[in-house]
């Protein structure tokens, strides 16, 4: 009996040890030591008087669909990371509600000749540790960026020269219409040269934004608190902003209903009815920007046959796809460019759902009785599995047998890059640079051109659209390029998913972005 008691005691001790050991071992943010103002120009934080900040709940908790995995700006590319980085860092420019470029850390940018951009910076900006943000930091950031894994977003930039404390010149290889938009990209948020040179452990945590990192427990939450040294007037309102990953969409919704979180990102559409019934919750929907598409490997038989591809384009029932994938909350489209991008043109004839025409095109392509057997690779997650099954059924009607292979994202990407696939489903989200759609998806030899599509005319038109100085000419070229690409059908664009987000009624947020990369630094829960 004694032995049993002692064993049970041991077990209880171990158990309680385990229960208490769920401690925080994540990163601690750099505690911003309030620096003595170095000169009158340094960013002394604006002490906003108590009455100009509206009454608000201290902590804003946002339930996200993925966990933050990397805060080193230039070494990552995930949207969830960028959403957090928008709190702590700032780029030279930012976007307003209509996606127009407006000043942020920079006041202006002008092409003073065909290969040089002159950028004028603010003089009063500073980092969260109180040190001033100058042209040196800008140069440092972009020098680092040119060698970083994400330098693909800065194509053409050759170097940055510091002219004086508030002026830099960016040396470009050639003129580009889209380059200035790249300067709004948060991974190119300005970082502190001094922080890197000081040898501190995570210099990338120092930014000029309204918030600083407070605590990060991988897989559980990441929290940000207001920076004491913010230079601007547009201070953050919520004292603390926390992101909690809920990988399970249903549990995210339930957490919102239980009040555990204030905002639910990407609620599953089939559960919106429960949220709409709830008096405390608002469901917001707006047109999105993410385009889901069905792609061909244009280098592989039989998909190098353009007429065959067009036949398939006619066989796909986009409305069924939208119904199955997002319960109708999406917009079909014919063109390859994301809706909302400059130059978006969707009025070409293209290939609508028409099974008879599809069969006719099949015959023209040399397959009057169908008889093709092929594989479709997709990522292992929700809209793709549904889309794939609809398309599989559609293609069966015209005699094409499709085998669906689900792969993990990583494998999907490498298989596509290596060109071993026949058909694939993927998505592309681009909000500000049309060149990134044309070039990255359709130009010869580009790694992300999973279609392995190669057409000199497309390459040529892409360059023209990037470099045309004259607006009318550029519009015409853009239209021509899109029409040409639709005709060539390296992919069948399916639909743009709507942005859906649900939140507590008292959330105050200036606006949401269709692409999902919202700016949370202005958000708060009103009391």
């Amino acid at each position, binding site marked *: *009996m004694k*032995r*049993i008691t002692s*064993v049970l005691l041991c*077990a209880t001790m*171990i*158990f309680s040890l*385990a*229960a208490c*050991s*769920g*401690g925080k*071992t*994540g990163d601690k943010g750099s505690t911003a030591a309030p620096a003595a103002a170095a000169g009158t120009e340094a960013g002394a934080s604006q002490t906003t008087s108590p009455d100009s900040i509206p009454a608000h709940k201290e902590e804003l908790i946002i339930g996200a669909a993925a966990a933050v*995995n*990397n805060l*080193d700006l230039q*070494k*990552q*590319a995930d949207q969830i990371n960028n959403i957090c980085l928008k709190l702590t860092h700032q780029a030279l420019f930012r976007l307003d509600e209509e996606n127009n470029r407006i000043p942020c850390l920079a006041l202006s940018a002008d092409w003073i000749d065909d290969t040089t951009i002159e950028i004028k910076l603010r003089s009063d900006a500073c980092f969260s540790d109180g040190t001033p943000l100058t042209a040196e930091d800008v140069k440092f950031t972009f020098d680092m960026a040119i060698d970083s*894994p*994400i*330098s*693909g*977003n800065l194509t053409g930039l050759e170097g940055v020269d510091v002219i004086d404390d508030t002026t830099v010149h960016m040396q470009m290889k050639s003129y580009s219409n889209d380059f200035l938009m790249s300067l709004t990209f948060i991974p190119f948020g300005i970082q502190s040269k001094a922080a890197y040179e000081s040898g501190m452990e995570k210099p990338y945590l120092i930014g000029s934004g309204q918030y600083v990192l407070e605590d990060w*427990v*991988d*897989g*559980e939450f990441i929290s940000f608190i207001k920076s004491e040294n913010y230079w601007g007037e547009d201070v953050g309102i919520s004292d603390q902003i926390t992101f*909690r990953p*809920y*990988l*399970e969409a*249903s*549990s995210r919704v*339930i*957490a919102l209903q*239980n009040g*555990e979180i204030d905002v639910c990102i990407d609620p599953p559409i089939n559960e919106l009815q429960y949220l709409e019934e709830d008096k405390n919750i608002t469901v917001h929907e707006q047109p999105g920007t993410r385009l889901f598409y069905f792609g061909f490997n244009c280098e592989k038989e039989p998909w190098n046959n353009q007429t065959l591809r067009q036949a398939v384009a006619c066989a796909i029932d986009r409305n069924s796809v939208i119904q199955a994938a997002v319960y109708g909350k999406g917009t079909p489209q014919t063109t390859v460019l994301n809706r909302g991008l400059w130059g978006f043109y969707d009025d070409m004839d293209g290939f609508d759902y028409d099974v008879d025409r599809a069969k006719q095109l099949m015959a023209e392509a040399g397959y009057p009785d169908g008889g093709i057997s092929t594989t479709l690779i997709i990522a*292992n997650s929700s809209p793709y599995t549904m889309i794939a099954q609809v398309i599989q059924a559609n293609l069966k009607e015209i005699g094409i047998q499709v085998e669906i292979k689900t792969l*993990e*994202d*990583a*494998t999907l*990407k*490498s*298989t596509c*890059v*290596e060109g071993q696939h026949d058909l694939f489903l993927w998505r592309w989200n681009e909000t500000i640079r049309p060149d*990134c759609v044309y070039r*990255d998806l359709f130009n010869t030899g*580009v*790694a*992300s051109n999973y279609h392995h599509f190669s057409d000199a005319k497309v390459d040529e038109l892409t360059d023209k659209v990037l470099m045309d100085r004259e607006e009318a000419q550029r519009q015409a070229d853009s239209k021509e390029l899109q029409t040409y690409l639709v005709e060539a059908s390296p992919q069948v664009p399916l639909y743009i998913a709507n942005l859906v987000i649900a939140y507590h009624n008292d959330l105050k947020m200036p606006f949401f972005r269709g692409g999902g990369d919202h700016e949370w630094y202005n958000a708060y829960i009103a009391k």
Partner: protein
Amino acid sequence: MLKYILKRIMLMIPAILATSFIIYFAMDMTGSDPATALAPDNATEEQIEQLREELGLNDPIFVRYGKYMMGMMKGDLGTSYVTKRDVFETFMTRLPNTIQLAFTAVFVATLIAVPLGIYTAIHQNTWKDTGGMVFALFGVSMPNFWLGMILIIIFSLNLKWFPSGAKGGPESLVLPAVTVGLGFAALITRTTRSAMLDVIRQDYMTTARAKGTGERDVIFKHGLRNALIPIITVIGMQLSNALTGSVLAETVFSWPGVGRLIVDSIAKRDTPMVTGAIIMSCVLMCVVNLAVDLIYAFFDPRIKAQYSQKG
């Protein structure tokens, strides 16, 4: 005794080496290139190549494995390809969650199963026995992720008693622990029952009754004590299973544990994380098994003697 423990620890090493070898090679053979997967969508060929150089992917496999082993000896399990964080650190952050879940599950299971097993053994062949055995059978036959879903439907969505996922306060532990524990409970019940049945029929029980010892003392002092060995074996097995095998419960309840970490890392082809986490799990399982064996010795002096001699 100490020699025995040391010997067991020595035996762990080849097992861990072999496991790491197999996993490392298996992950490597997947044929998909981690660099392509990790690079941003619009990276160029040169950037992907540069990433490959950085990750050391261009060295031949044996060189890479060698480097990995050297690191392992020093206790450095490498850095994750995906999060760039230390593998060991990430594992240790997730481990307490899994330990919590595993221990609670086994605790719950034992709490239900042992009394149930004793009860059904005492009342063998009555309807109480059948009832208990049916419960045990159902527990073993259910896929535990399905049980998790059903529990969510009933207790979380309809009754709203418990949260349906993610780690929060103690109430978020209840449903996942019951999900994992119920399956274990079934197995432990069956083992307890058959162990008790074996013991009840033994002669020394009759002797004890003849001597006039109360029935309760007969069952507990004499019966249960001797039946404990197989019961503890099974509890120990379930514990080491729980530590690594609760992947499904962790998926259904979004519990940030080790099992889920491994499966997600395999999906992302994060070789260092997968290898490191599986190695750590094996170490953990070995430690738990050793602990269970030591508890045997505690209970059975014959085994204790055996261990002391063996060393």
